[in-house]
Structures are given as C-alpha cells and as structure tokens.
C-alpha cells in the first residue's frame, strides 16, 4: 500500500482545463499576430523564470545575473548556426549546455558565499558577460549592431507564423516544467530545499552542499539559456541591451511577483508582469519608474507573490468557513 507523502489534492480537472486553454490560445487570439507574439514571449519567460526558481526559489541561492545565461543561450545558438550551419535545435541544446557548464564553474567558488556577497558575484558575472557582448573579440557578437539569425526551422519544418512558433514553445514549456516537477519532488529537489531551509543542518544530513548548489546553478542556467535561444529564434534579432542587469532584475521580479518555490508561481508572475508591461507601453517615458513603484508595492504588500497571496486567501477562506460552522454548532448546543 502506498502511503501518501503529501496532502493529495485532486487537480486533474484543473490541469485539463489549464491545458485546454493553453492549446486554444492561438484561436482565442483571433489571428492577431501581436497578441500571439506576446504569448510566445510569455512562454519564453516562463522557462527562463522557472530556471531562476530552481536556483533561488528551491535552493535559496540569489542570482542577480541570470540575464547572462539568457545571453549565452541567445548568442550561442545564433553564432553556432550562422557560423557552422548546425541544425538549430542542436545549437539551442549546445548553447544551453555551455551555459550550464559556465554556471557550474561560477557556482563552484561562489558556493562559499552567502546572500549579499553571492548576489554581488552574480552581478559581476552578469556585467562581465554584457561587456563581452558589446566588445567581443573579433566582433563575433557584432557588438552594438546586434545579432541577426536566419529562418527558424526544426527538422526541416520552417516556422512562418507566430501560431506555429507558439505550439513549439508550448511543447518546450511542457518539457521543461515537467522536468522541473520531477526534479523538485525527488532526492535532488529535497536536497535543494534543505539547503535553502537550513544549510547547516543539510550539511549534517549528509548533503554535499557545494555539489548541490552547483547542480542547482547549472540546471537553472540551462533553463534560462534555452529560453534565450528560444527568444532569438522568435525575434530573429537581439541587441546587447536586452541582456543588461535590468533583465536579470525583471526575471527576479516576475518570480517574486508570482511566488517562488512552486511550479505555478513563475507562470502567474510572468503572465501578470508581462501583461502589465504591455499595458504600460503607452507610457514609454515613465515605464521604468512605474516598474520600480510596482516592485515596491509587491515588496510591501505581497511578499508571498500573487500565487502565495491566492494560497493565503484560500487558506484564510477555508479557515473562516471552518470557524463559522463551528460557531453555529456551538450556538446549537446552547
């Protein structure tokens, strides 16, 4: 007999309706290319932010330089394809793997650092990669001109519409989120969470903290880099300014807005922040200011993120109902 290891919630109906909506988005968007593009970008960000969630939400390691991995993925796939003509999907996997390797190399010495100093090292790493993008030796990144990429195709199929790309993105999201689900509910995932909760005790439980921090960083880098690779093949062009520290902060904001340390949190966060940014497009000049104000509001009012907020409201609601009914029972006894 299998004893449960966590409170079982019947989510099947919810999951099916979620999946149905996701599959039907291109129809719901009614052929509006721009709206569809927005959803494609949301897919990219979901994978990128889920990656950040693995290292920060689950393992507790703060990274303010994830845009660097995003860049490695984007530039890597384009350079490999443009220069060597390798199949695009292969270049995406290769550049994400390169990012994972670099992430591991960075995490190894950085695992000694905690919090502020760790975040400083990630900021420094992010800046170094950015400097490399704008001043590349031999101009491989084309510096400030930005990088163009050719028609996106996989296994011979050429993607001509945003709708087609959307379904590709959906498959990627399913794969990456599925892998994340397996990873966090496993021995490795528990080690990550233990390190976040109590690094000292985790060490005492036989968890090689350094090894797992490196694993978390490398995995996270792979995710965000692959997302970057997806991005360049969606937009066909990138400019170095997409990969500044502001982008790293955006990833983190989306994660915290939605709720870290969960599967759905990043989705909530990405969707809400992206829609918010889109709705502010008219106020181009005030965009950064409003963004800063929003960050402050989230920090002060919603520390658990939207997803955390919903969960709390749901728990409060259930608690309120329970108390209410108990109260009625007591009244009956009197």
């Amino acid at each position, binding site marked *: 007999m299998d004893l449960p290891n966590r409170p079982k919630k019947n989510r099947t109906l919810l999951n099916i309706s979620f999946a149905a909506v996701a599959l039907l988005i291109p129809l719901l968007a009614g052929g509006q290319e721009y709206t569809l593009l927005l959803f494609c970008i949301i897919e990219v960000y979901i994978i990128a932010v889920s990656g950040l969630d693995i290292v920060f939400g689950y393992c507790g390691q703060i990274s303010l330089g994830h845009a660097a991995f995003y860049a490695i993925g984007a530039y890597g796939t384009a350079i490999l394809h443009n220069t060597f003509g390798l199949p695009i999907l292969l270049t995406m996997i290769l550049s994400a793997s390169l990012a994972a390797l670099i992430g591991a190399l960075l995490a190894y010495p950085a695992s000694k650092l905690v919090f502020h100093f760790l975040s400083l090292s990630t900021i420094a790493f992010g800046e170094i990669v950015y400097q490399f993008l704008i001043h590349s030796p031999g101009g491989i990144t084309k510096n400030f001109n930005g990088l163009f990429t050719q028609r996106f195709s996989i296994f011979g199929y050429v993607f001509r519409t945003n709708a087609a790309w959307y379904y590709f993105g959906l498959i990627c999201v399913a794969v990456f989120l599925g892998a994340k689900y397996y990873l966090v509910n496993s021995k490795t995932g528990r*080690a990550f969470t233990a390190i976040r909760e109590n690094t000292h005790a985790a060490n*005492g439980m*036989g968890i090689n903290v350094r090894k797992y921090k490196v694993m978390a960083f490398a995995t996270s880098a792979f995710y965000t880099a692959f997302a970057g690779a997806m991005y360049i093949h969606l937009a066909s062009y990138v400019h170095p300014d997409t990969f500044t520290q502001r982008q790293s902060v955006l990833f983190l904001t989306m994660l915290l807005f939605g709720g870290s340390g969960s599967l759905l949190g990043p989705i909530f966060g990405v969707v809400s922040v992206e829609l918010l940014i889109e709705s502010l497009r008219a106020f181009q000049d005030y965009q950064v200011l409003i963004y800063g104000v929003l960050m402050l509001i989230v920090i002060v009012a919603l520390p658990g993120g939207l997803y955390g907020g919903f969960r709390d409201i749901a728990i409060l609601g259930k608690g309120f109902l329970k108390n209410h009914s108990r109260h009625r029972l007591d009244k009956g006894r009197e």
Partner: protein
Amino acid sequence: MLTTDKVTIKFGGLTAVNAVSLHIAPNKITSLIGPNGAGKTTFFNCISGVYKPNSGRVIFNEKEIQGKKPYQINEEGISRTYQIINLFRKMNVLENVVVGMHPRLKSGYLSDMFRTPAQRKEERSAFRKAHEWLEFVGLEEDALNPAASLSYGKQRLLEIVRGLASDPKLILLDEPAAGMNSKEKGELDILLKKILDLGVTILVIEHDMKLVMGVSDYIYVLSNGLLLAQGTPMEVQNNPDVITAYLGGE
C-alpha cells in the same frame, strides 16, 4: 567505536576544548556532562565536522575523521541533533525524515530529473520507511503537517528520528531533553533505550542529571575544556571534583 585522541580546539586566544581524549564504546549510551561553557557542544561540533581541531585526532571505527566535512562524516555513519532545533521548517514532518535518509538513497541527478522506474521505486520505499520511523517515535499522526507546527517536545523527537533515518552507527544528541516536561523526559528515557536496541550507539550531552544517571552506561565530565572525570554514573556522582565543578565557585 569512537575514540578521540587529545583533541584541542582553540578560538583565537581561547582554548574551548583542551586535549580531550575519550572513548565511546559500541552499543552503549555515553553521556557528556559539565557546567555551561565547558566545551561540550564545541566538542560535538568537532566530531561532526563543523570544526577542525587545532590538534588531536578523532578516530571512528579505525578511520581518522577529523577535518572531514559534516556531510562526509554523516556518510561515515555518524548523525547528530542540535542544541537549537534545526528542522527544515517549511517541509512537512515526513519530508524532514526523508531528507535524513539522503546518504542512503542511491538515485542521482539524471534519474531524478527523468523519474526512472528505479527512482520511483526507491522513492516509494523511502517514504514507506519514513512512515515507519515516525511510528517508531510516535509522530505518525503529524506526518503531513509542517514541521514548524509541531509542539516543542515533538520537534525535538523529529530531530532525533531525522538523525536516525540515515541508519547511523553512532548518533550524537545535543541536549535532547532541553525544554521537555517530566512526562516527555520519561518517554525520552524509553526512546533512548529503544534506539540502543536498534544497534545504534548514543553519545549524549545533557544537563538533566536524573535522566543522565538513569540512562547512561558511562559518563565523561568536561569543565573549562578539560576532561575532569569519567566513570559509571555511581562513580561520577561521588567524585569530589565533579561536585566542586558544578557547585563550587565557577
């Protein structure tokens, strides 16, 4: 089982543990007692790998383990609990125990990420074993509650059973009875003997003399970093140095 050979730990100018040599016999309960600040927890920290001794050796089953990292020492077969409760607060009780099993689980990163059939089997049996551990200490009702929601005494029990989950040969208990009421201490007494029956050797730091005298096979007394006295409970109780150390002008 465990021998320390003149272990010394210094922090700057302060010598917290001064050339302490002792021997823990297998399948017995050994206690380490002494006034506050005697260096007992520092000594524990040295055995469990948190500190590296300035000099001296720690030998566990004929292997020198001083200077090894805490996770390596756990893999060797030594577990510990902490003076301040160090649970994984947001995980539920069951998960805390499963984390304790970490060194005994074989699955790796890739088998975790792709959830191979072997990994699924291992996870199922791990959680089953964890339930058994909870039954062993009487916590199975709280299995799915967050660890932080337990009462203080139950949290202490969880710490102990989490330490047992890795099937250690030796477990170090740092003040397990702290904050317990007398009923809970009585239950702890029984639990310690149950742990012994499992074949796990126990080294315990405790302040509650009644518990110590009732449960120990052998006692070491530490004072100001020095090994002051050792012996059976009877011998230690009547040792004049020990009486002075506890009652006389420190």
